[in-house]
């Protein structure tokens, strides 16, 4: 799997990079809690350092690394997991969607003898025509609800996991859910076509969330406001505020228009071998240590 991924990026002129796993501050997220260490914290994603590399002029980079997210443990979650991230300068999320399509096709050819991916016994063929649908369309057609009213009532994640993801299990090819409402933009750029949405997408295979990508927000002021908003929301949830990644905010104005994506490698292995539980794809679960 790792060799296949490296071949994919090598052939496309990407530079493989390594960045520190232990950092003073991750990008603050409302619902992602970093694992503290004696000093600083472990990365929840390598995004901060990789984006700083973009600011320094590296234009196509990828990394395969361990990430840690506190308290995330279930049939699709390990606290310590393997992430693949890649970034392209002078590109937007559309190029990333094309990368996803080509990457999954190559991985299935290299690692699964070109057999389709399997999730809960359903076959999902990356070689077929992918479904690319907007989040708003998915909510109205798969759950018969309006996405904005779901967000207003704090029900977005509940509808997503109870209605949308189960419906996506039935799709015979991978699905790209794109154009997230601005409230869920995270570090994504506002859509050029409709300012109510952000250029963010999620890749689903057989209902399993595999990757999250977006056109990067490159405005330091806007990014700082969003981080502060995240911290205000964390306080409301009774969670501690998180330190802002100041050097990143300081360098952000130098970032060219870029796009980046994070993909869960353990989950890609699950799909490749048809494992329904993430425990099946690691030699050691945290409970066995």
């Amino acid at each position: 799997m790792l060799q296949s991924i490296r071949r994919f990026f090598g052939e496309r002129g990407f530079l493989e990079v390594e960045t520190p796993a232990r950092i003073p501050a991750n990008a603050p997220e409302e619902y992602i809690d970093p694992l503290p260490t004696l000093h600083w914290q472990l990365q929840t994603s390598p995004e901060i350092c990789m984006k700083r590399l973009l600011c320094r002029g590296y234009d196509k980079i990828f990394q395969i690394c361990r990430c840690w997210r506190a308290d995330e443990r279930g049939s699709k979650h390990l606290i310590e997991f393997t992430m693949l991230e890649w970034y392209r300068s002078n590109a937007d999320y559309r190029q990333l969607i094309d990368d996803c399509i080509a990457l999954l096709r190559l991985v299935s050819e290299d690692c699964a003898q070109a057999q389709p991916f399997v999730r809960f016994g359903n076959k999902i063929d990356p070689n077929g025509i992918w479904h690319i649908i907007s989040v708003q369309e998915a909510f109205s057609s798969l759950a018969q609800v309006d996405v904005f009213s779901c967000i207003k009532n704090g029900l977005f994640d509940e509808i997503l996991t109870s209605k949308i993801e189960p419906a996506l299990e039935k799709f015979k090819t991978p699905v790209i859910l794109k154009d997230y409402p601005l409230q869920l933009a995270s570090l994504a750029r506002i859509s050029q076509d409709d300012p109510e949405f952000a250029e963010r997408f999620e890749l689903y295979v057989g209902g399993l969330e595999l990757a999250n990508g977006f056109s990067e927000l490159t405005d330091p002021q806007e990014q700082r406001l969003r981080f502060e908003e995240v911290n205000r929301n964390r306080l409301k949830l009774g969670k501690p505020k998180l330190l802002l990644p100041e050097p990143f905010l300081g360098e952000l104005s130098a970032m060219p228009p870029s796009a980046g994506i994070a993909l869960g490698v353990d989950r890609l292995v699950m799909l490749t071998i048809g494992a329904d539980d993430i425990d099946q794809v690691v030699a050691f679960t945290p409970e066995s240590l």
Partner: protein
Amino acid sequence: MLSVADLKKGTKLILDGDPYIVTSFDFVKPGKGQALYKCKMKNMINGSTLDRTYRSGENFEPAGMDERDMEFLYKEGDHYTFMDQQTFEQVVMEEDAVGDAKNFLLENTKVAVMLFGTKPIGVTLPNFINLRVTQTDPWVKGDTSGSDSKPATVETGYVLRVPPFIEEGELIVIDTRNGEYSTRIKG
């Protein structure tokens, strides 16, 4: 108090005053979204099931369960009376809560009674229990109908299938977990 992160399969908790056992549990979380805990739970009194989704930060009261060794004394209408072997206290349980165990209860049978607070909510029988056959048709030697079992009624009124050679008045061993004939006791 239990936090939602403490829940796992088998956890017993109180919801709306009733004890529930978690029968399946999963942690789900969209990458950037909030953590949700999906539970299926079974009401330990009436057996009804519930699907619930919880968010982190929610708390539950654990259901304190206590299992006591008791002896079945007698039945009156729909009420079954048991006596605690240690304290000699008597508890009365309704037929619904006794469930299938009622098929195997004879006076003086030793059982374990599950208590929720002071309320008895279930009976655990020994895995095997001996009961006498009160009615069954005699076995006609040379019967070639090919049937390898026949119905028999035991002293509690329970009817089960037994091998053709079992006769009225014989003592048989029943597996209480599936209610099936296990063997016979000769003599």
